[in-house]
């Protein structure tokens, strides 16, 4: 029965004053531990990606400049690879490509999903039927095998090929959510009044409808970015990326093909994997925190409050 009491305190908490966008969003992020952890990790990686030369003295991390297979030391914090590269320097310089893939692929996929999802919901009728069918087909198609096959046919590799396949396969999940949300907003009074005012359709969508969908769009972006980070790393790990590129996934590929685990150099493959995991975790934490911010019922119940309820 205690859980019932806890539950009711949680729901009475729900109708908290609705925060305005802008300043309110920042306060919400700052007071949410998960969001802060995610943001700090992301900003750290962003700083490394923008100015890698501040973090290491090595300038050409792909050159075979050092003794191969050295254990971690003061000179090489994480040791060197079997090919004679500094692992730490490779990690630092690899940040940029991984981050660019996440942001560009995630961003474009989100724009696509907004375009397709919102227009499906807003146009209705035949346009809606065909667009949502397209979305559902893409949602169900097994994307990773498709990506592998596409990447193979398109010539292994280059960054642009990976970006294109990530975007083509990454938009459908968000589009489905956008459509559902836009459908539920379609007949609200504020849109009705804009229509009565005689606003153009485009104006209504861009200035009336989209702002109310901000949190969903942010969530879709974070989800697409997470998907892109993990998928790109997976592709490169399998050796379907450019083997000379500087990225975490490519490092993993070389480490795996040189049997890093079995030859006593676990850091070579664990360190870049950890970076992928950290970047992924930062997107996932931010995503979950946004869920909590936009739906207060999901927020963690404060322990003190829970105790009071027991009493």
């Amino acid at each position, binding site marked *: 029965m205690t859980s019932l009491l806890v539950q009711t305190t949680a729901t009475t908490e729900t109708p908290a004053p609705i925060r305005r966008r802008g300043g309110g969003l920042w306060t919400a992020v700052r007071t949410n531990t998960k969001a802060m952890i995610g943001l700090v990790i992301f900003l750290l990686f962003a700083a490394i990606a923008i100015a890698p030369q501040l973090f290491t003295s090595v300038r050409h991390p792909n050159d075979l400049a050092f003794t191969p297979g050295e254990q971690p030391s003061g000179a090489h914090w994480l040791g060197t690879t079997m090919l004679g590269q500094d692992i730490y320097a490779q990690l630092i310089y690899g940040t940029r490509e991984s981050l660019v893939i996440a942001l560009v692929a995630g961003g474009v996929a989100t724009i696509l999903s907004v375009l397709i999802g919102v227009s499906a919901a807003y146009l209705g009728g035949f346009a809606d039927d065909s667009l949502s069918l397209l979305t559902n087909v893409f949602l169900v198609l097994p994307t990773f095998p498709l990506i592998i096959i596409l990447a193979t046919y398109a010539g292994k590799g280059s960054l642009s090929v990976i970006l294109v396949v990530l975007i083509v396969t990454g938009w459908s999940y968000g589009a489905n959510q956008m459509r559902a949300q836009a459908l539920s907003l379609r007949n609200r009074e504020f849109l009705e009044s804009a229509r009565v005012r005689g606003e153009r359709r485009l104006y209504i969508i861009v200035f009336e409808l989209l702002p109310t969908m901000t949190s969903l769009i942010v969530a879709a972006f974070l989800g697409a970015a997470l998907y892109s980070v993990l998928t790109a790393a997976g592709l490169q790990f399998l050796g*379907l990326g450019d083997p000379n590129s500087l990225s975490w996934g490519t490092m993993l590929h070389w480490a795996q093909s040189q049997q890093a685990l*079995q030859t006593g150099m676990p850091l070579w493959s664990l360190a870049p994997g950890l970076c992928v995991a950290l970047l992924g975790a930062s997107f996932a934490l931010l995503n979950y925190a946004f869920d909590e911010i936009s739906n207060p019922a999901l927020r963690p119940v404060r322990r003190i409050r829970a105790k009071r309820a027991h009493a």
Partner: protein
Amino acid sequence: MRFLLRRLGFFVLTLWAALTINFFIPHLMPGSPLQALRDRTHNKLSPQALQELLASFGFKPNQNIFEQYLDYLRDMLTGHWGVSIGQTLGTPVSTIVGQALPWTLGMVGVATVLAFILGSLVGTVAAWRRGGRLDAILPSVFVVTSALPYFWVALLLILMFSVWTNGLLPSDFNYDSSLQPDWSPEFIGNVLQHAVLPAATIVITAVGGWVLTMRNNMITTLAEDYVRMGRAKGLSDRRIMYNYAARNALLPNLSGFAMSLGFVISGAILVEYVFNYPGLGYLLYNAVQNNDYPLMQVLFMLFTVAVLVAVLVCDFAIAWLDPRSRAKG
């Protein structure tokens, strides 16, 4: 009934779309099967034999592309999948697939279902004990595990349970090559031992998502009036938790389960690659490495069919669990 018919229609349409993509990608992209085959045989086979081989898996360059397309559709659906042009040149694709399929179904399938059941249970309990010690840490932990890359978890497990412990658990293949496959307890034990690490990888990375969505659904359902009504009637906690709240909260998760199968397949490819586990994912990797076009096409079709069948099964399950979906039609 109309609901089920609509779902069947969707099934057919998506399968057709997948097959069409599958057919046109090789035709639109640079690089041809003929070239791949020529490289593979190092010109050892006569052009005549090559032509025959290619014709035997449906490659007729002089034929009208539309006719080729129809032939291809018929062959795919009737199981005339041609022969491999990869490492195992000339072996029928259906034989290769038949050897790999049980391993993927057994290992990946069991691990995925286990993760779903485990995750939904933990999510139900976490939401029920809202504000408890469990609920305070679980969400954060599972947010992080659900974002972990499959292959990294796999590498970590290999390091911890195989490399550092001198091969406590095997990290390679599906069973020791010294054993003869049969139904003896020794062989079955060996197979299970080899499946532990790959299956654990899948469970660890997949369980988080189910916990989180189930918890969120449960929290929403627990606030419903019918739950309060159940309490007022004096039903037991257990009954309210499973029969009233969880049964409703599970519905969105079930449809999510089918959709997530695509992610499971991507995970299976990476996990099987890391562990050299001879399932369908590993097969696809090899097919790609060897430009084995017929095998690739069949595998992609099978993956699509697997997801679509799961979607159908989940639709039926939802129709059975939720009377509203039947009424809506």
